[in-house]
C-alpha cells in the first residue's frame, strides 16, 4: 500500500518559504535599519591583523637621475608618473640627521605601526618635493631622541624613491602640544617641520613639543597636474 505522497515533500517546502515570508514581513520594517548598520561592520574579505607594513622605498643614488619634465619656468620637475605616492602606513623613504645620530625609516602617516618602526609624516601635510610643509613626528625616547642635539645650520636628508632632499635647520623651539601656530601647513614652499615630545628624558605624558624647522636647500620638485585636470 502506498503511503505518503507529493504533499509530504511540497508542503514542508511551502511551510519553510511561508515562515521566512512571514518573519520578513513582520520584522523588515524594524530590522532593516539595524541590518543596514550591521552591514557596515562587515567587509568583503577576512580581517588581516598583520603588523607588517609595506615598504615602497627604493633608494635613488646621488649619481642616478629620475625622469623629469621641464616646467613653464624652465626648471626640471620629477615626472608625475614616476612618483609612487605612498598609502597610509607605507614606508616610502628614510631620514638622516648625522649631527643628531638619526637615521631611520620614514612612513606616510603617524600611526602606531609607523612610530614603532620609524618616524611618520603627519597625514595632513605633504611629501617632500610637493611644494608644501612636510611635518614629521617621532617618539622622543626612540627614533627622535637625537633631536635633543639639533641646532641651526645642521643638515637633514630625506631619501625617497623619486629623489633625495636636503634641508638645513633654521631654528628649534619648544611649544605647547595644542599650539596650532607652531607650524604652518598652508605654506606654499617646500619646508620641513620635525616634532617630538618634550622634555626628552622626562617620564610621563608631557604637554610640550620640541619643534625643528628646516628649509629645503636641494631637491627636485614634483610635477603637479594642471588646474582643471
Amino acid at each position, binding site marked *: *500500500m502506498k*503511503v*505518503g505522497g507529493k504533499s*509530504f515533500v511540497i*508542503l*514542508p*517546502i*511551502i*511551510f*519553510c518559504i*511561508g*515562515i*521566512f515570508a*512571514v518573519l520578513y514581513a513582520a520584522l523588515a520594517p524594524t530590522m532593516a535599519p539595524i541590518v543596514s548598520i550591521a552591514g557596515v*561592520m*562587515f*567587509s*568583503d*574579505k*577576512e*580581517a588581516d*591583523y598583520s603588523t607588517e607594513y609595506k615598504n615602497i622605498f627604493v633608494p635613488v643614488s646621488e649619481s642616478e637621475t629620475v625622469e623629469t619634465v621641464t616646467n613653464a619656468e624652465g626648471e626640471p620637475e620629477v615626472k608625475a608618473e614616476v612618483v609612487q605616492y605612498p598609502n597610509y602606513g607605507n614606508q616610502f623613504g628614510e631620514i638622516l640627521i648625522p649631527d643628531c645620530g638619526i637615521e631611520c625609516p620614514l612612513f606616510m602617516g603617524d600611526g*602606531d605601526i609607523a*612610530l*614603532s618602526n620609524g618616524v611618520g609624516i603627519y597625514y595632513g601635510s605633504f611629501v617632500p618635493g610637493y611644494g608644501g610643509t612636510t611635518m614629521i613626528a617621532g*617618539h*622622543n*625616547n*626612540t627614533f627622535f631622541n637625537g633631536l635633543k642635539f639639533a641646532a641651526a645650520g645642521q643638515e637633514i636628508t630625506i631619501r625617497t624613491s623619486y629623489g633625495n632632499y636636503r634641508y638645513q635647520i633654521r631654528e628649534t623651539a619648544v611649544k605647547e602640544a595644542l599650539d596650532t601656530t607652531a607650524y604652518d601647513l598652508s605654506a606654499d614652499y617646500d619646508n620641513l617641520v620635525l616634532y617630538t*615630545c618634550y*622634555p626628552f*628624558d*622626562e*617620564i*610621563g*605624558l*608631557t*604637554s610640550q613639543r620640541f619643534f625643528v624647522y628646516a628649509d629645503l636647500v636641494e631637491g627636485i620638485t614634483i610635477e603637479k597636474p594642471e588646474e582643471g585636470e
Partner: protein
Amino acid sequence: MNTKTIGKRIRDILFGVLSFFLALFLFLDAVCALASMTVLNEESWMEQMTVSGYYSEKEQEITKKLVQLGNASGLPSDFFEDVIDPVQIQKDMQNYMDSYFDGTSRILDTTPFQQKFRAALDRFIEEKNAKVDGKSVDNLVKQAKQIYSGNLEIPLFIKLSSYFQMARNYLPYVIGGLSLLSGVIILVLLLANKWRHRAFKYYYYACAGTGLCLLALSVYLTASGGLKKIVLESKALYQMVVSFGSSVTVYLWVLTAVFAVLALSMFFLYRTFYLKAAGSTD
C-alpha cells in the same frame, strides 16, 4: 461537490494552517532557545573567551598599546613585562561580564591595574632617579587606564545593553508562550482528528517545515563563513566572535538534525497508524 467533500476540504485547510503555525512557533522557539543558550548566556561567553585564547591575545594587545604609550612617555618596552597580568585580565573580564549580565554596572573596574601600574612606575622613577612632573605622570596613568579599560570593554556593549537586558528578561516568557501555543496546537490536532494518522501527518509537516528553515539558516551561515568578515579592531575579540559564530552554527546544525529526526519519527508514526487504520477498515 457534496457537503462532506467541502467539509473535508475546509478541515484540511484549517489543519494545514494550524500545522503551519505550529512550524512557525517551533522555529521561533528553537531560535529563541538557541539565543538564550548562547548569545544571552554569560557562561557561553566566558567559555568562548577561554576556547579562543582571548585572554592571552588581549594581554599581547594591551601590552603593545602600552609599549607605544611608553614610547611617548620615556618608558622602555621591558617596563610593561610585569605590569600586565593575564590572570588579572581574566578576573576583570569576569567581573565586567557578571555586572553586565546582572544589569547592574557596565563600567570596567580598573583599580587593580591602576594600582599595579602606579606602583611599578614609582619603583622605576626611584630606581632611575628620573625627571618627573606630577601632572605628566598623572596624565600617563590616566592614559594607561583608558588603554586598559578601552581594550577590555566590548564595543557597542553599552549601547546595546538596554536591548540586551530586555531580551534576557522577556525571552523566557516568549519561549514559554511559544511552547504553550505549540502545545495547544498539538492537542487540537490530536483531539480534532478521529484518525490518529492524520494528526501525525500534520505534526510531520510542521517538524519538516521547521527542519527545512533551520537547514536553510545552517547552510547560509556555513556557506557565508559565519562572522569571519566582521571588522573589529581587536584580534582577540575577532577570534572570540568567529569562534562564537562557529559554535552557534554547529548548534543550528544539531537543531536541524533534531527536527529531521522528529519529522522522520512523525512520518513513521503516521505510516504505522495509517496502515493500522487502513487494515481495520478493510
